[in-house]
């Protein structure tokens, strides 16, 4: 009985969201509003249990590491973000967390640029490695806007566009497959778990 009620609730909410395919309607708006609230409500106890208790409460009250009171007070300054007069206080926790960008300079250069460049500079021993090399160079040239994309340079950058379109197509195909997989999951739930038509 309990499982039937649970399935009915899940099915009603699933159909409420699918009703948007017809047009925007009160059932969809209801489900959308509920999703926002429940998602936020779901995150609060998780953050409390997995972040606040182990990293704020336990160090201060159980391990007596009273120095942690300072970052806790720093974090509480976030609350002033909406104050007209004291809103500037919220800048302190923001800049404290954002200072990690210092590490992202060497890290992004290493992982996203140098490692990728090293992988692109392998010996060209076949048609595929040649195509990968040409594709990488032409796309990078396409994103170089200091020179007008005209003449031979324009033709070269055009090759880059074609490579990018194939890449976007592959990503598009993967995204469609992921979404269709979710759709199949919901239809299986409606026809199987809820209505019992599919075993």
């Amino acid at each position: 009985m309990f499982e039937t009620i649970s399935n009915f609730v899940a099915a009603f909410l699933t159909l409420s969201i699918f009703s948007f395919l017809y047009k925007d309607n009160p059932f969809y708006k209801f489900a959308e509003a509920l999703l926002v609230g429940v998602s936020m409500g779901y995150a609060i106890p998780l953050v409390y249990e997995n972040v606040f208790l182990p990293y704020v409460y336990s160090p201060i009250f159980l391990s007596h590491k009273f120095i942690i009171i300072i970052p806790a007070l720093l974090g509480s300054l976030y609350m002033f973000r909406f104050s007209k007069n004291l809103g500037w206080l919220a800048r302190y926790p923001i800049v404290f967390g954002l200072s990690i960008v210092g590490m992202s300079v060497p890290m992004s250069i290493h992982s996203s640029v140098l490692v990728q460049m090293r992988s692109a500079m392998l010996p060209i021993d076949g048609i595929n490695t040649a195509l990968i090399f040409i594709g990488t160079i032409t796309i990078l040239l396409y994103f170089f806007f200091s020179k007008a994309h005209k003449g031979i340079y324009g033709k070269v950058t055009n090759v880059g566009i074609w490579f990018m379109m194939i890449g976007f197509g592959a990503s598009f195909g993967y995204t469609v497959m992921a979404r269709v997989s979710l759709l199949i999951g919901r239809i299986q739930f409606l026809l199987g778990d809820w209505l019992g038509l599919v075993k």
Partner: protein
Amino acid sequence: MKRQIPLIIIITMGFMFVAHSFIPHKVSADFFDWFQDWVKAVSPFAVSLGIMSLFMVHGTKIKRKVPNWQYSVITLSGLIFTALAGFIWGTHVGTPYMWLFENVQMPMSATMFALLAFYIASAAYKAFRARSAEATVLLIAAVIVMLGQVPLGAMISKWIPEASTWILNVPNLAAKRAIMIGVGLGITATSLKILLGIERTYLGGGD
């Protein structure tokens, strides 16, 4: 001074982090451990900012009785009820909190993403109608990759899974690599702008 002191903090600490990346010394490692402990203690309070923001936005809608304000009541009720369920009965399997996750949150979010399957199909049709060579190449690549992932592709032709693998491993790799290099340079440039105090939008408006 309300802007200068935060700027001094981020520039000083930012360059200390740059140094930390290059200096594998105990002092440097201790500095990073200290930062991690402190930033973890700061971060849960950022969630309270999100909660406050949600309450302010929807509270104002309810107070002013703007059109469709009733949905704001549902949002806030859902938030309060789910959070209370987690605090009162715990977050383990079998509690009302997990029931809400399994029968309310999860089905709705999965359906929301499943809806995109229809809109993606509609976008593909619009791209096909554009009749440009680039859009056609994109669609052909997408169709081959899609068919290559399901048994239907191999049933149509044994070349489709192979073509799909080739697209993913050759032109797609070149595109992803070039975009990755561009993104890496973008992250570096933005990080440097923050470090040097050129980018200041994160400080917000006001004095």
